[in-house]
């Protein structure tokens, strides 16, 4: 069988391309960031290892136009095409699948992703999709499903694999029940870097201090905390799975020594903590990987890394730490179930920067309860942290109720959700009623991004750079140039609806 794991190029009316970004939601960017879809990469690798003919078909990272991408896919004549859904592009995917099924009726269309897995009937009703995966463990499910389809012509009627919704005919859908939440991640192979053409993702990514960079196979799938109300990795049907330290270290060694990676980022919802984090750092040092001119980075939470662990990570050449500072007032942190207090953030950041890590803050504004006082407090806190040098870079997003998260449900229950059209969930504008005019939140975004151009911040950064060695200078210059470009782009994206009337 021939299986394509496909990401079509999707371009909006502003000429921006759809990119899977934060929380695996889609945002549109003019200058794209190419994120390697790790779990899909593992699925592709596993299927290839089983002997299937696999096409890694990412039209975005391969710089194809839609027409080129589609024609190439048809020419390859796949038996199965696997897509990944997210809310703002659902309608696009439904149309695409209908077109594909019209052009190749026998091709099996499989939809994966955090939108359709929570509402599988919708995708089967709205399109000619054959199968929707209810599981986020796409690799484990496809590893069972594809051989089953290959060996059973009656797979629509008899498939015993859990976590699927299968089309039997136009209106008859078979639900095989909830999926297995915890999988032994060590059984899933490391991403085949050649198969996914890893260099296509090695340069344009804001999480890299230096290039070529790459994403590691995640050590934690989803999030071990999993309680933040706005986050996709939250729900009664979701938990987390863990990969062993040693298996991951083996992959890091290969990436550094065989592929020449100079930055490895782990995009697990939250990376290891405690004993596992220390064991990992020691492993990097024991293998000498900390002396190979490669930086390492990960996502974490405030409250997870103590000073002993941070010191060890820094020694092992960890640098980029991406961390959510969703707000700076106790009420918002409590309502978001963040699990830490306002004071904890600064205390943790002091430890990170003391040992030389580069904290990158992700901030959100536009909660449906956010008052001017709370908004001001967030802006002031972020300015304070940046001016003090307790964080190096930042990113601001509009809090968008990602579908089927507790925050989304709250917005519905409180009748504050303004958008029904899935296209509006692309994080480019506020789609909830707020106590302040929406423009107040857009203005706050400008203020926060404005920090990057504040002389006080620039002076602090230059002072920081002067303490770095030559290689860090070089890479931070490159990084800085790209950062300014990204800031401009984010400001454009997040404020393009400024001044426009809000449909209430």
């Amino acid at each position, binding site marked *: 069988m021939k299986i394509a794991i496909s990401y079509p190029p999707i371009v909006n009316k502003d000429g921006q391309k759809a990119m899977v970004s934060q929380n695996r939601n889609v945002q549109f960017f003019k200058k794209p960031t190419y994120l390697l879809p790790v779990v899909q990469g593992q699925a592709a690798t596993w299927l290839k290892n089983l002997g299937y003919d696999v096409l890694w078909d990412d039209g975005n990272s391969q710089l194809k136009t839609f027409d080129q991408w589609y024609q190439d896919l048809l020419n390859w004549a796949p038996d199965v095409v696997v897509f990944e859904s997210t809310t703002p592009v659902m309608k696009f995917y439904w149309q695409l699948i209908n077109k594909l099924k019209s052009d190749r009726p026998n091709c099996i269309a499989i939809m994966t992703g955090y939108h359709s897995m929570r509402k599988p009937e919708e995708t089967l009703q709205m399109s000619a999709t054959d199968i929707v995966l209810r599981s986020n463990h796409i690799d484990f499910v496809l590893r069972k499903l594809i051989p089953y389809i290959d060996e059973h012509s009656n797979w629509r009627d008899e498939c015993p694999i*859990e976590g699927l919704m299968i089309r039997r005919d136009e209106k008859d859908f078979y639900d095989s029940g909830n999926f297995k939440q*915890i999988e*032994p991640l060590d059984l899933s192979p490391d991403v085949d870097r050649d198969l996914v053409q890893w260099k296509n993702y090695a340069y344009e990514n804001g999480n890299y201090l230096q290039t070529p960079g790459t994403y590691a196979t995640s050590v934690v799938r989803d999030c071990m905390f999993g309680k933040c109300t706005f986050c996709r990795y939250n729900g009664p049907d979701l938990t987390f799975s863990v990969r062993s330290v040693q298996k991951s270290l083996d992959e890091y060694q290969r990436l550094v020594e065989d592929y020449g990676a100079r930055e490895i980022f782990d995009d697990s919802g939250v990376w290891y903590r405690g004993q596992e984090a220390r064991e990992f750092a020691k492993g990097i040092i024991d293998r000498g990987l900390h002396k190979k001119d490669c930086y390492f980075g990960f996502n974490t939470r405030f*409250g997870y890394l*103590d000073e*002993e662990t941070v010191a060890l990570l820094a020694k092992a050449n960890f640098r980029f730490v991406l961390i959510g500072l969703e707000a700076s007032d106790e009420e918002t942190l409590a309502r978001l179930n963040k699990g830490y207090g306002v004071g*904890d953030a600064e205390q943790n950041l002091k430890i990170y920067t003391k040992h030389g890590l580069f904290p990158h803050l992700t901030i959100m504004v536009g909660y449906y309860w956010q008052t001017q006082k709370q908004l001001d407090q967030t802006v002031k806190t972020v300015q304070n942290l940046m001016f003090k040098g307790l964080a190096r870079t930042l990113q601001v997003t509009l809090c968008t109720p990602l579908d089927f998260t507790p925050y989304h449900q709250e917005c519905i229950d409180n009748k504050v959700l303004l958008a029904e059209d899935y296209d509006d969930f692309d994080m480019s504008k506020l789609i909830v009623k707020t106590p302040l005019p929406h423009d107040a939140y857009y203005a706050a975004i400008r203020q926060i991004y404005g920090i990057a151009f504040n002389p006080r911040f620039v002076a602090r950064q230059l002072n920081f750079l002067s303490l770095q060695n030559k290689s860090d200078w070089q890479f931070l210059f490159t990084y800085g140039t790209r950062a300014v470009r990204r800031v401009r782009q984010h400001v454009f994206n997040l404020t393009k609806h400024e001044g426009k009337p809000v449909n209430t």
Partner: protein
Amino acid sequence: MEVRDLSESTYVIRLERDGFSFKPGQCVNLGLKGSGINREYSTYSGVDDPYLEFLIKEVKAGTVSPGLRKAEPGSEVELHGPYGSFFIDPEKIKSSQFVFIGTGTGIAPFHSFVLSYPNLDYQIINGIREVSEQHDYQDYDPSRIACCVSRKKWDGFNGRVSDYLKQMEISLDKVYYLCGNQGMIHDTYDILRQAGVSGDKIFTEAFF
């Protein structure tokens, strides 16, 4: 605040309730005041108890659990929460039969369930390494708890919870709650699914 030692490795920390409300089975983040570091722990006490309790295994190389154990009576801890959806739908309490499968301190949320819902129709399968880890068993109906001891021989069942499950009759009508380490949950899930239990009747809470 006070600490009750249960064994060399395990203790219960009791905190003033102070109006804190939660659903049995939910967890909180606990940490030493001012430390900036915290960890998640499931509720152990009942929903109507005048205090809050958490069953904690001390991780010797850890940061939070050894510190909390040393905390003096009257000192303060930081608590955030409650969080999570590992609780029982109140509408199903009277109409469903439950099987709670937990290893080690993974019995904590089930302890909270049992104390909170006196008429609950439940069965607990508790996996521990040795008999000394039968913590607060007096709080459970003896006919409703099965203990699986994996390391030291005793008069009861010797083996893991997965071994126990393989030799018991698995009902397809009951609702299964699993709490503990990843390996146990993975193995147990497979056994239940192979027996024909729907994935929609299995709920999990995994420890890191």
